[in-house]
């Protein structure tokens, strides 16, 4: 049972990452590539948070109900890291979309194969 849970949780996060990677590397439409990057980010963040969980743990907040009792708290550090990582991912996606808009204006297509002004 424990193994099933481990594999399914980590496996789904890694599967998300692989789907995002596939979309970012193989697809030809610019917007699909940006969406792939977003999905990849989502997978990594999910993996981060999943690592921080402890069995029967509660949220790491010392509210009135928890003070004095001996409870197991989930690891707060990956949650803090993920907060930063989500914002950074958002920033990169915003810049990527702005570039897509400008590329579309200039070349009138969103197919990456047709935008090859810069040769080798």
């Amino acid at each position, binding site marked *: 049972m424990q193994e099933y849970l*481990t594999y399914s949780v980590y496996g789904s996060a890694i599967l998300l990452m692989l789907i995002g990677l596939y979309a970012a590397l193989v697809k030809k439409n610019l917007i699909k590539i940006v969406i792939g990057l977003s999905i990849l980010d989502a997978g990594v963040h999910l993996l981060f948070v999943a690592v921080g969980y402890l*069995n029967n743990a509660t949220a790491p*907040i*010392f*509210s009135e109900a928890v003070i004095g009792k001996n409870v197991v708290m989930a*690891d707060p550090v990956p949650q803090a890291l993920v907060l930063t990582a989500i914002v950074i991912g958002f920033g990169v996606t*915003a810049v990527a979309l702005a570039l897509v*808009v400008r590329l579309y204006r200039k070349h009138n297509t969103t197919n990456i194969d047709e935008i090859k002004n810069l040769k080798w």
Partner: protein
Amino acid sequence: MKKLIVITLLLILGFYLISTFSSTPFGAEKVSGVKDFYLKQSPETLKVSNVVTAIVVSFRGFDTLGEVTVLFLASTALGSILYRRRTKHSGLNPQREAVISSSLVRTGAKVLFPMIILLGAYVFVHGHLTPGGGFQGGAIIATGFLLILISYRKFFINHNVLTWVEAIAGTTFVLIGIGGLIYATQNNFLENFLPEGTLNKLMSGGVVSIIYIAVGFKVGAEITGILDTLLTIKEAGLDPDEN
């Protein structure tokens, strides 16, 4: 052919990753590290109940400074790439004229907008007591603005106001940091120099709540600015080829 190579590589990577992560079962006790220190010090020394907030603002406050900078950078880079003129707003964008939303959407947006703003403000003011904080609250506020921007064609956001809010909030953050350099006991950047108060009250945590409020304003202003820029892209604006 290229797809086949990519899929093979991805499968190898996935297999390698899964075997690495599954060595420790989900939920088991991991290696003991820094988290015990945080869980102990946060309610005792800093008097902040939300440990994640304490980590984000105080223990790893430098990361938050970097993150705020990343948002500011994204907004500036966006403006630079899309050549938004920060001059007076001249006329409507042809893209936004195309869709006229129904009266249901418009009325609903008008009713929901103040409540969303209130929720966002609540989330970031109480960041050190309940789950949430500056970033989450700022994102909620930006969602409220997005709702209004989509439903009303003529809603005009004054980018001057946004610029002032961003600049002042960002400067407040760095100034509090430098204040820590001057006033705090050990003269370190971003150290807490205000009295801590008692646990679980609104006035607790010293500079933590003030920093998070500034962050909430900044994030809300910036995400709204980004959304507005992306929504009001002018079609005619690309100058002839420049070297």
